[in-house]
């Protein structure tokens, strides 16, 4: 359907509303006008038709007068011809004049309408016929009266024909209206015929005598009577038909019709009676003629009235048509006007609405959101206007809201800007005080406007716009050019990797204004810069750090020097002596000798070089520097050719190098040594005299400053100087014990300290050694019996006190024993109760061994130590506490009457553990780390590590896949991790090694990776090794039934079951 409308819609869319309405309105008016025209034309035609009928009526009205006069004349003339007329010729003449007048009236009418009805020629014929009849009047005698009658009758026929002609020509006979048609029929045919027939009968009745009519006449008369009857009947029928349909006509004509119906039959009956005289009454002729005249008059009156009736009907009809026409025209015009009116209103309403909306939207578009359209209609436009109004309303509200929120935003923005400014300021503040210089530059290689305050401090000036290369190397054009080329390359290089490589070529430290400045580079995207790329520099003043480093370095070097000098004191002093000789005697001697200058130079150079080397080994840095300079000087003069090397030139050249000056080169180092070691060191040239406390201080400093690896090298050497055999610390006690014994009247054998050659740190062990005095004292005073007691007990007079020091793997065992009376546990208990250490009951419940412990209790010794009765156990708590500080333990073995033996176990510290044990120390964390790693990464059931004895012949059996790792640093050796394929596969499944390799390579990689992770973890468990030990993967192999040879001293292997397979971990050292 829609596509049918499409062209119309397209066309409508092309017009403005004015033209749309104009087009539709025009079409409506056109069709209405055509309709009105057609309708009125039709009605006018009908009116014209009726009007033409009127002409017929007018014509026939005159013609019927003529007809009546003519039939009257026929009767008169017939009577005249028969000779019955008394009036005679005058009556004829008069009657002829009346016919003439009637004819004249017809002619007058004909003049106006003849043309229209085409009657004129017929009237002419009628007139000429009448003239002929008038001429003949005198010629007819009684014998020819009938002929004249016939001629007249024919003339009358012509009149009737004319009537009918006018009827047809004027449409009267064709009237479509039934009433009119019937009446017309009566008027045009029936009534004229009736009049004619009645006239004939009246005329003929003139010669009729009762019963005298010839049979031919009789028939003729009766035929006329029959004609009259049938014509009357037909006329009456017409009238009755009209009456049935039209009451008004009926009421108008009823009387006349009845009169005709009364009078005509009476006349006919009388006429017939007269004709048929035999049976009829004797009717007087006058009566008959009178009846005839009445009948004719009645018929004539009826005729006229019927004409009137027709006229009336036609008038009515014309009036109706006119009314209809007027109604139609009026109605149509009215409706049209109404339509136009409404249409205009519609147009105006729509256009006004549309224009209003148009204007509204225009003004809204221009920003006037307050504009509103008036709602003028309740149609779609109205609702559209309402919608637009509400839309504008919400727009306005929205606009309001937007404006409000914009205002709010503006406010927030201002706040934000303030905040940003604040933040920027604080950020700037932060950067300015970060202690680092920040600056950036773009492709022009000039410093951008923004840089931090520290930059000014570093460069000692404002640097905006300065070329970066000039900042870096103010005095080195070559370096500037290089740097600029490098920066340009960095800016233009597309390859990121290559760009990074170029970055590494940039200097990372500069000397600017005498300060060491560290430089870090960063590429930054700066939207402000032209192409967005900038390089930012972060400058850090490292001068202090550098100074600190230098200081540290110097300290380290000093330490190294001190240690070397002390440990190689002999070499040191010898070299010192030799150098002094070299400076004071050899050089002057050489210079003054006769040997060639070249030889002299060579000798001096060689000797200088040797001293440089020796002092270098000893770590005398300043001396080395000076000697190095001297070497340079010697090289220079050697290169300067023979002229310089002349005999007299050389001493001159050497003039600045006086013996004092050259010896002075040692002063600084010597001063340092004296500071550190004390003057005593140099007092006796051949004896090393160093205060132990000074050595200890040096040692502590080294531990603090040096890396463990360095300590390893230096500290043992130093320690060897300071450490004493443990026995040495006890060396005073034998004398002490013997003097005590003597004092207390005991006899005693020579006391000695056996063993104990292991050097130990005297600072660490001296307190313990001093505390042991209590033990010796107790042994002498309380342990040993008097000679008498001894003899009584069956012992030799002389008691014995022994001291032995046994060396064990990781410590020392100090044994102090006497063969005295031993310790009685009961007595200990008693003393403990007495001293309030424990109550009686508690004391009684202690075992003998536990009771023995009481002698070490605090308060067991003390004020009563000289109390003879108190027995043993004095001052021993001090021994126990010193022992505890060293992490040692003790054991007492005593028997009453036989003696007492104390055993003290002293652990020795790590530095004294042999190197082999150090790697072993790695084993524990390594094994733990490996186990944890397997549990974590394989999900296999992991057992416990089991130590496996390595087979002899230095062969290490391997599992399928093995990785060797070199461990270097404080400890060194090799780690071998060897695993079954099943274990490695599980490790692989857990790992992320997705590199598509050959399977063998892949499994090797997995194990190597795992081993690396295990080692890293193990080392991280021993904090002091984190930086001191380095692991380096050597090789990973995959082979069945392989074994590895190990030339090293020892191998240790542990095995762990992990699910279906096993893993070995071996340490070679």
């Amino acid at each position, binding site marked *: 359907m829609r596509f049918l409308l499409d062209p119309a819609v397209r066309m409508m869319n092309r017009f403005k509303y004015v033209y749309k309405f104009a087009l539709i309105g025009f079409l409506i008016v056109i069709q209405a006008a055509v309709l009105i025209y057609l309708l009125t034309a039709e009605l006018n035609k009908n009116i014209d038709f009726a009007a033409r009928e009127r002409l017929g009526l007018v014509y026939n009205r005159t013609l019927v007068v003529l007809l009546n006069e003519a039939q009257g004349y026929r009767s008169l003339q017939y009577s005249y011809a028969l000779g019955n007329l008394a009036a005679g010729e005058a009556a004829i003449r008069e009657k002829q004049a009346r016919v003439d007048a009637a004819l004249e009236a017809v002619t007058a009418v004909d003049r106006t309408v003849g043309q229209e009805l085409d009657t004129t020629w017929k009237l002419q014929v009628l007139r000429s016929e009448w003239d002929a009849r008038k001429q003949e009047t005198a010629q007819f005698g009684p014998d020819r009266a009938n002929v004249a009658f016939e001629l007249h009758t024919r003339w009358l026929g012509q009149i009737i024909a004319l009537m009918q002609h006018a009827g047809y020509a004027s449409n009267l006979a064709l009237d479509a209206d039934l009433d009119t048609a019937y009446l017309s029929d009566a008027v045009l045919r029936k009534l004229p015929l009736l009049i004619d027939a009645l006239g004939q009968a009246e005329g003929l009745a003139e010669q009729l005598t009762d019963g005298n009519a010839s049979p031919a006449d009789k028939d003729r008369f009766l035929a006329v009577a029959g004609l009259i009857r049938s014509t009357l009947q037909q006329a009456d029928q017409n009238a009755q038909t009209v009456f049935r349909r039209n009451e008004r006509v009926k009421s108008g004509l009823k009387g006349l019709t009845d009169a005709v119906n009364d009078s005509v039959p009476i006349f006919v009956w009388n006429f017939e009676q007269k004709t048929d005289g035999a049976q009829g009454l004797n009717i007087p002729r006058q009566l008959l003629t009178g009846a005839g005249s009445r009948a004719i008059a009645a018929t004539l009156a009826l005729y006229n009235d019927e004409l009137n009736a027709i006229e009336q009907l036609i008038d009515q009809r014309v009036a109706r048509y006119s009314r209809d026409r007027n109604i139609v025209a009026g109605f149509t015009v009215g409706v049209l006007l109404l339509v136009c009116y409404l249409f205009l209103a519609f147009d105006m309403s729509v256009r006004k609405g549309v224009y209003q909306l148009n204007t509204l939207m225009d003004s809204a578009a221009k920003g006037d959101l307050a504009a509103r359209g008036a709602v003028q209609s309740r149609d779609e436009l109205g609702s559209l206007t309402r919608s637009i109004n509400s839309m504008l309303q919400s727009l306005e509200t929205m606009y309001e809201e937007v404006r409000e929120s914009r205002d709010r935003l503006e406010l927030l923005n201002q706040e934000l800007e303030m905040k940003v400014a604040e933040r920027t300021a604080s950020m700037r503040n932060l950067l300015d005080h970060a202690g680092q210089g920040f600056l950036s530059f773009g492709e022009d290689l000039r410093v951008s406007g923004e840089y931090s305050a520290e930059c000014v401090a570093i460069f000692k000036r404002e640097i905006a716009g300065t070329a970066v290369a000039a900042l870096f190397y103010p005095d080195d054009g070559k370096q500037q050019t290089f740097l600029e080329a490098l920066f340009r390359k960095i800016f233009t290089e597309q390859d990121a990797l*290559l760009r990074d*490589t170029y970055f590494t*070529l940039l200097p990372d430290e500069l000397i600017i204004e005498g300060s060491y400045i560290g430089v870090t580079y960063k590429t930054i995207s700066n939207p402000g810069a032209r192409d967005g790329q900038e390089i930012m520099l972060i400058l850090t003043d490292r001068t202090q750090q550098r100074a600190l480093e230098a200081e540290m370095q110097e300290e380290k070097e000093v330490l190294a020097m001190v240690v070397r000098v002390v440990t190689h004191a002999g070499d040191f002093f010898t070299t010192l002596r030799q150098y002094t000789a070299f400076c004071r005697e050899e050089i002057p001697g050489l210079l003054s000798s006769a040997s060639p200058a070249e030889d002299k130079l060579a000798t001096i150079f060689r000797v200088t070089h040797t001293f440089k080397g020796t002092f270098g080994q000893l770590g005398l840095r300043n001396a080395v520097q000076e000697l190095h300079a001297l070497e340079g000087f010697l090289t220079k003069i050697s290169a300067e050719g023979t002229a310089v090397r002349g005999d007299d030139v050389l001493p001159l050249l050497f003039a600045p190098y006086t013996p004092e000056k050259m010896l002075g080169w040692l002063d600084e180092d010597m001063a340092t040594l004296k500071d550190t070691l004390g003057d005593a060191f140099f007092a006796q040239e051949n004896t090393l005299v160093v205060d132990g406390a000074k050595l200890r201080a040096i040692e502590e400093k080294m531990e603090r400053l040096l890396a463990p690896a360095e300590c390893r090298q230096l500290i043992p050497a130093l320690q060897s100087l300071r450490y004493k055999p443990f026995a040495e610390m006890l060396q005073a006690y034998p004398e002490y014990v013997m003097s005590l014994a003597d004092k207390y009247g005991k006899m005693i054998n020579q006391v000695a300290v056996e063993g104990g050659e292991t050097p130990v740190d005297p600072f660490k062990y001296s307190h313990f050694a001093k505390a042991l005095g209590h033990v010796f004292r107790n042994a002498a005073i309380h342990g040993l019996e008097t000679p008498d007691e001894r003899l009584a007990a069956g012992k030799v007079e002389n008691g014995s006190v022994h001291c032995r020091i046994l060396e064990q793997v990781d410590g020392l065992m100090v044994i102090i024993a006497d063969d005295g009376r031993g310790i009685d546990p009961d007595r200990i208990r008693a003393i403990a109760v007495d001293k309030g250490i424990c109550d009686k009951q508690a004391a009684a419940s202690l075992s003998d061994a536990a009771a023995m412990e009481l002698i070490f209790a605090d308060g067991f010794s003390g004020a009563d130590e000289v109390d003879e009765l108190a027995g043993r156990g004095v001052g021993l708590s001090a021994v126990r506490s010193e022992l505890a500080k060293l992490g040692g333990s003790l054991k007492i073995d005593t028997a009453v009457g036989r003696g007492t033996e104390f055993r003290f176990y002293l652990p020795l510290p790590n530095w004294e553990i042999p190197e082999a044990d150090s790697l072993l120390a790695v084993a524990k964390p390594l094994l733990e780390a490996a186990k944890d790693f397997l549990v974590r990464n394989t999900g296999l059931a992991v057992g416990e590590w089991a130590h496996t004895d390595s087979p002899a012949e230095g062969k290490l059996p391997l599992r399928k896949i093995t990785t060797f790792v070199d461990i270097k640093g404080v400890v060194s050796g090799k780690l071998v991790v060897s695993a079954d394929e099943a274990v490695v596969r599980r490790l692989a499944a857990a790992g992320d090694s997705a590199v598509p390799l050959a399977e063998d390579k892949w499994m090797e990689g997995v194990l190597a990776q795992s081993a690396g992770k295990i080692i890293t973890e193990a080392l991280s468990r021993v904090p002091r090794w984190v930086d001191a030990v380095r692991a380096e993967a050597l090789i990973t192999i995959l082979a069945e039934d392989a074994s590895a040879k190990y030339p090293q001293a020892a191998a240790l292997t542990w095995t762990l079951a992990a699910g279906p397979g096993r893993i070995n971990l071996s340490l070679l050292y």
Partner: protein
Amino acid sequence: MARILIVDDSMMMRKTLRTILQRAGHIVTAEAANGDQAIMYYANHRPDLVTLDITMPGMNGTEVIKKLREIDPDANVVIVSALGQKHIIFEALQNGAKNYILKPITEDKLLAVVNMVLTHSCDSPTPA
């Protein structure tokens, strides 16, 4: 696992490089003691990477790079250089070297640089 050509006039240096590279799974296809040997070898065998001593008697490193790039514009050349030769390194890089290593060589340093260059050259499409 790349095929690598070592170019260095020092035998010790060559040996060190070879050991480290092979241990890392690379194949050292050849060693060259000077630029001419290197160029000849490169032309015939097209190794994946060349380690090139920048200072050698005869043809210097930069010239070697130029020649190598004439043969193969995508040649992966890694410079081996002593400290303090930044100008020479820069020149070599500008002439098409992909990266550089400073002596003394360590395993970590060498392998990091070699692998980076190899990975990088795999990533970047080779023009036909």
